[in-house]
């Protein structure tokens, strides 16, 4: 089997690179070992920097709408995070004074959204808050199994019954200028978000829940569909088992499902993610990139990987695959000519050039795709 480019990992960075290359007419395959960290996505492309307009256009073509606006995102624990590009689900505030009065609405029995944390934080900034619960008979079945009162299951019910909840909230609402809801709307169709905003008598902020992330799942599905509509091949639930590397060039890979049917390509992109996705793996003494054995810098003493203060910056989050200026992955000190590393597998090793987090995932994806297409980095 032969492709122009094979991408290992089907998360945010892999899909962005894949779509970018398919749009340029390249033949691309993505090998994805299960779903990815998009399912934990807050909806905020932090550190997106100069790639803001470009990613907004790429996402718009996939049916994913974004807000290009500088400001702050209200987080699930009541803190604020800077934003310059977000999914349309996210309400961006100019400063931490988000409201005079806020109505925080949750669903009875939903334990993955903590109104009290949000209320405490907003009250510190001078707001008054009320927390109220809504309940629909149509959701009663979710409570049969307490472990399944989860964001996605509620979102499915909301796809059908969001208007009833909006009706209940209109009754609960008094004189608040902000209504805060969990992100459990628009799983199937994000158009519901605008309809809710229009139907309620105050500004609406959808705030993140515990995983899985409803906006993240919707975005993942739309990006994957876009990649496939452009002619890309997405191998879901498969895993790369070996790579043929000879004199600094990768010629082919094998996968668990396709075994003897090798996949050949001119270029390879490693977007296998961080520790969660097993793009990086630790043993008691080492941090390893398991597929190619790429170079990673980490302190010899394991105690130096952590900070005992749980909330402090954790050094292990910085560890990642070493790359040259153009993101060629480095093994035994030498760059591999046709292998690019992008996204979380880099850790924070390229912070100065590409930032961190989701913004970094996208900016490195563009950079690698552009090098492959022969454009500018």
């Amino acid at each position: 089997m032969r492709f122009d480019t094979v991408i290992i990992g089907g998360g945010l960075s892999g899909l962005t690179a894949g779509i970018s290359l398919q749009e340029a007419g390249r033949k691309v395959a993505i090998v994805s070992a299960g779903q990815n960290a998009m399912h934990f996505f807050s909806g905020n492309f932090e550190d997106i920097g100069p790639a803001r307009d470009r990613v907004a256009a790429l996402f718009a073509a996939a049916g994913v709408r974004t807000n290009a606006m500088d400001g702050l995102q209200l987080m699930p624990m009541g803190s604020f995070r800077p934003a310059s590009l977000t999914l349309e689900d996210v309400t961006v505030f100019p400063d931490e004074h988000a409201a005079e009065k806020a109505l925080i609405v949750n669903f009875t029995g939903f334990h993955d959204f903590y109104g009290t944390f949000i209320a405490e934080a907003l009250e510190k900034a001078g707001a008054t808050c009320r927390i109220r619960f809504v309940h629909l008979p149509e959701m009663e079945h979710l409570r049969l199994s307490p472990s399944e009162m989860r964001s996605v299951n509620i979102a499915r019910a909301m796809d059908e019954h969001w208007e009833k909840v909006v009706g209940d909230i209109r009754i609960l609402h008094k004189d608040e200028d902000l209504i805060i809801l969990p992100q459990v709307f628009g799983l199937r169709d994000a158009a519901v978000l605008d309809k809710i905003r229009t139907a309620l008598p105050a500004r609406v902020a959808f705030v993140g829940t515990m995983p899985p992330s409803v906006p993240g799942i919707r975005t993942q599905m739309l990006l994957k569909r876009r990649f496939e509509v452009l002619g890309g091949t997405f191998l879901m639930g498969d895993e790369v088992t070996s790579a043929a590397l000879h004199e600094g060039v990768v010629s082919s890979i094998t996968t668990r499902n396709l075994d003897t049917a090798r996949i050949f390509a001119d270029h390879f992109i490693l977007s296998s993610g961080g520790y969660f996705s097993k793009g990086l793996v630790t043993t008691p003494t080492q941090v390893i990139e398991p597929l190619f054995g790429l170079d990673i810098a980490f302190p010899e003493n394991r105690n130096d990987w952590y900070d005992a203060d749980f909330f402090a910056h954790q050094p292990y989050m910085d560890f990642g695959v070493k790359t040259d200026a153009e993101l060629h992955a480095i093994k035994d000190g030498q760059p591999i000519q046709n292998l690019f590393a992008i996204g979380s597998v880099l850790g924070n090793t390229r912070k100065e050039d590409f930032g961190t987090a989701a913004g970094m995932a996208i900016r490195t994806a563009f950079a690698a795709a552009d090098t492959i297409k022969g454009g500018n980095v």
Partner: protein
Amino acid sequence: MKLQEYTASAHNFEECMKCTICTAYCPVVPVNPRYPGPKQAGPDGERLRLKDPYFFNQALKYCLNCKRCEVVCPSGVKVADIIQSARMKYGNEQPRLRDRMLASTDFMGSLARPFAPLVNGVTGLGITKTVLDATFAIDRHRTFPKYSGRSFERWLKRRAKEQAKFDKQVAYFHGCYVNYNYPQLGKDFVKVMNALGIGVQLLDKEKCCGVALIANGMYKKATKNAEHNVGALQKAVDAGLTVLTTSSTCTMTMREEYPELLKVDNAGVRDSILLATRYIWQLLESGAATLKFKENYRARIAYHTPCHLERLGWGIFSTELLKMIPGVEFTMLDSNCCGISGTYGFKKENYEASQAIGKPLFDQIKSVNPDFVACDCETCKWQLEMSTGYTVKHPISILAEAIED
């Protein structure tokens, strides 16, 4: 300090980190509130069951065993295998007569075959459907698959001599469906293989792969069939033959379920069991053989990937083959379960859930409005034809009609 360096647990269940992604993609959860979902039924429940089998929940029977949880799991947990193993180990529900009938595909087939026209006529009658619904709880909306008057095995045995003339040979695991219900698929397969210069042999007596037996709790019979089949497959492999199949579910069962669930060692034969589409695609891609297609062939095809093919990860071979045919306009349908899941959808208690699961797929097919749907699975074919009105063809049958006679 003593550290446990690697986790090792049955079906990888200790790798679960409770992300709930499996539940988000389970086709049963949105339609059946009695099903606790793959995370709870699988790794979470397993922890409790290991403490005390009392915690086994009969609601695990609502699992379709579609394996979609395994396909999406970021941690490589074999969620569906955990659930099926728990049903085998702790479940005490005895299969009812109806379940035994539905599961015994080869027995029922050999019983019905001699009287095929009569059986087909009777099972198609409204009154029969009402009786089956009332007495056996087989849903009245379902039409029983038609039985063929002459089995595929008999058809191929009569042609054994002409097949033996080809220098290159393969063995064919046809499965119950081709043998009793739809021999035409087997004939199409033989036509395509012959066009590639390859003769087709039967195995030395195959039995039902056992997938329906597993689904209906008839584990002993399933294990017996698996042991028999591994023996028959081994004979073919020892004779230097690759064993080809046209059913994605039989293939997944013989390759994956035999060792994982039934604990039947298939190491000697596993790598030699291949879907015909994979084998043919590899032949064509390597240039070892060619197919001559009709010049005027035209078809707008929408392709549905069956769950078990998704699990095998081999859908790409079927889709690449179809795209190779000149004159084909190809649409890939979104990856969704059709809802039938073998015998599951035939049961009265599952009918509504079964149709609700398939609805997004039915709707998409209607909006694409293809000439016909392509799919590698026999039970998806029944479900999609009944629920959408579109004809469903196997990729091998499409190849057979697209090549020069």
